């Protein structure tokens, strides 16, 4: 009675699309749904690898037309200069509109108050993002978040509903069935759309390789002064200088994720090509956030808490 149900000959079920083709097609579909359903969306572009992938997907979705949305970056003012240069060059090359809003402006307005001068500005991006959403009247923001990044993201919808305070209520999310996405909102409410929800870190690197995408140089192995802190490498920069007693080492490192320089740590690596990074990613033993995010170490529920406050 336990006769084979699935034909064992794999040739018969040879899928027409390989896994990257499938993920790409799904992401293009999601981007076009945002364009078709929302009246004033924006795409969040930081110059990081996930948003670089988003831009390529947007090209595939909308060329030869212009993107039906501007690019938006919320700048903490603490980003690595190579990444900011890359961001500007890429937007210019694509001939698309780039809007930059900075946490420093929110600080000047008094809507962001730091507890201390050296507090990380990363979580305060939420305030500046919400201000930009209000300023431009965006009804949707497209972002490069992935469900494999963190526990709180595993249950995130592809079209995630945010109330007028930008808050994410995990108990009040819309059921998401088939590919029938519901982006309808009332004025002031907002959708966050995540076209690469179903991608893993490895998928992202494989896609970067397949598409030959350029990245900011700090993603590749380079020499950098760092201090070992609590199992992570803290880069020595103007913003994060060495203190007395710190042991500064020159190590060959690369960044797996780039964000605010006060909370993003590099990993030791010799991988100076995308191919070598893929090989390292496929055999790595530490998750992307675990290795690189100083802010998620705070508590097991750190990300969930930040998302409830409107964090991207």
């Amino acid at each position, binding site marked *: *009675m*336990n006769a*084979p*149900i*699935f*034909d*064992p000959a*794999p040739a018969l*079920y*040879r*899928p*027409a*699309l*390989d*896994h990257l*083709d*499938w993920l*790409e*097609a*799904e992401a*293009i*579909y999601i981007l076009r749904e945002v*364009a*078709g359903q929302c009246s004033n969306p924006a795409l969040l572009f930081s110059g990081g690898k996930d948003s670089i992938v988003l831009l390529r997907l947007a*090209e*595939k*979705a*909308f*060329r*030869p*037309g*212009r993107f*039906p949305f501007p690019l938006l970056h919320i700048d903490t003012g603490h980003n690595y200069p190579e990444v900011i240069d890359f961001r500007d060059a890429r937007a210019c090359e694509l001939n698309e509109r780039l809007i930059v809003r900075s946490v420093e402006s929110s600080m000047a307005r008094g809507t962001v108050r730091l507890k201390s001068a050296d507090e990380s500005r990363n979580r305060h991006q939420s305030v500046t993002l919400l201000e930009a959403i209000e300023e431009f009247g965006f009804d949707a923001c497209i972002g490069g978040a992935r*469900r*494999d990044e963190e*526990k*709180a993201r*595993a*249950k995130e919808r592809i079209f995630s509903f945010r109330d007028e305070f930008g808050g994410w209520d*995990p108990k009040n*999310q*819309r*059921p*998401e*069935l*088939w*590919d*029938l996405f*519901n982006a*309808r909102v*009332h004025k002031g*409410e907002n959708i966050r759309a995540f076209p690469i*929800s*179903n991608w*893993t870190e490895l998928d992202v690197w494989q896609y970067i390789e397949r598409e030959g995408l350029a990245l900011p140089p700090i993603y590749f192995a380079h020499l950098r002064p760092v201090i070992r802190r609590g199992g992570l490498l803290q880069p020595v920069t103007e913003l994060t200088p060495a203190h007395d007693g710190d042991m500064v080492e020159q190590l060959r490192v690369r960044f797996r994720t780039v964000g605010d320089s006060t909370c993003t740590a590099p990993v030791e690596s010799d991988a100076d090509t995308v191919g070598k990074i893929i090989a390292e990613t496929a055999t*790595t*033993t*530490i*998750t992307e956030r*675990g290795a690189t995010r100083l802010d998620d170490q705070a508590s097991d529920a750190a990300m969930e808490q930040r998302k409830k406050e409107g964090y991207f």
Partner: protein
Amino acid sequence: MSAIESIPGFSGPTDNGLLRFLTCGSVDDGKSTLIGRLLYDTKAILADTLHAIATTSQRRGMEAVDLSLLTDGLQAEREQGITIDVAYRYFSTGRRKYIIADAPGHEQYTRNMVTAASTANLAIILIDARKGVLTQTRRHSYLAHLLGIPHLVVAVNKMDLVGYDRAIFERIRDEYLGFARQLGIGDVRFIPLSALNGDMLVDRGANLGWYEGPTLIEVLESAPVAHSENDERFRFPVQYVCRPQRAGDPLLHDYRGFMGRVESGSISVGDEVVVLPSERRSRIKGIQIGGRSLTHAVAEQSVTLLLEDEIDISRGDMIVRSGEEESALVTRRFEAMLCWLADSPLDLNRKYLIRQTTREARGLLDGIAYRLDINSLQQLPVGGIGMNDIARVAFKLAQPLVIDRYAENRATGAFIVIDESTNNTVGAGMIL
């Protein structure tokens, strides 16, 4: 060498696509342990995650690492010790990528299981070997069947707790088969396993020597992905129309690209097509993706279609193959199995928005045939339709939709119901 590499015939870098599957069962069936074990044995769990759950296991006084903690999600769920929402997990064997939709099994979470099942091509139904086929087993199987999942795998778990007894496995299998036939479930296979010890998931283990069938991972590796089995009719709902009209570029002046995803079937340059509901005809002049030209496009590919003739097409229109237009029904009324997802019950007098493919129409309930008791599968007289209810209904529509029967086409036979006052998705249905 990982266990995956040691499976015969699984060597080589061939990319065998992406399979979406669903796991149904309750905490007690060891579902979280099964998923944790799959992720762990396929090396999808990294050291820091493992360290975190090892610490938690220790703190809770457990001797071994509790793999079920891997699928623990949100703070509220951790506090209650249950899963209340669908979570998506990922792993890859190097040959194939997997997306697991992990749905809670309890009756009050029918809507979550329906959600998880909507995108799956295979379902793993968990049965506790000590308990056998339960009411919830029937419920899970019925919902998987209702949502059109073509392949079911019944995982008879906790075989370690029944002494790996073959007779117990066979008794459960026979009972399940009787019930599956009643429902009309075709494709089902059975695997005895112990998620706790890892027997018959990725490794065969040493305890189930009498079982000669494939391990769970072997079944997953060889299961057909969506759209790979039957010849299907071409369906292309238009998502977005691209008209660049860039001044100074005469090549783009007349460019009109119809963007969308091939939901089923395939199309080639030169094929004659019909646009529904307008019934205008044309021929495929070009197929593009990001400016690159293709001669042919297949199901699940997102492309841009260019037509020979200038005809008026907008979002929500459906492009089908000429000669097959009769197979797609353009209608202002349909019957469906409806699953209600919202706290507030269905209001018989209100108009709702029906979204199907990329099209929307206002709809009003035009009759309820019966409500289904998803435990007994009895048809009940209609009292009203509330959260988690499943009912056979009819809708009449203010604007026509282009539909197929769900049993024939999951993409064009599915719809959601939106409450315009809240904009929430309140129902989901399958057209009969």
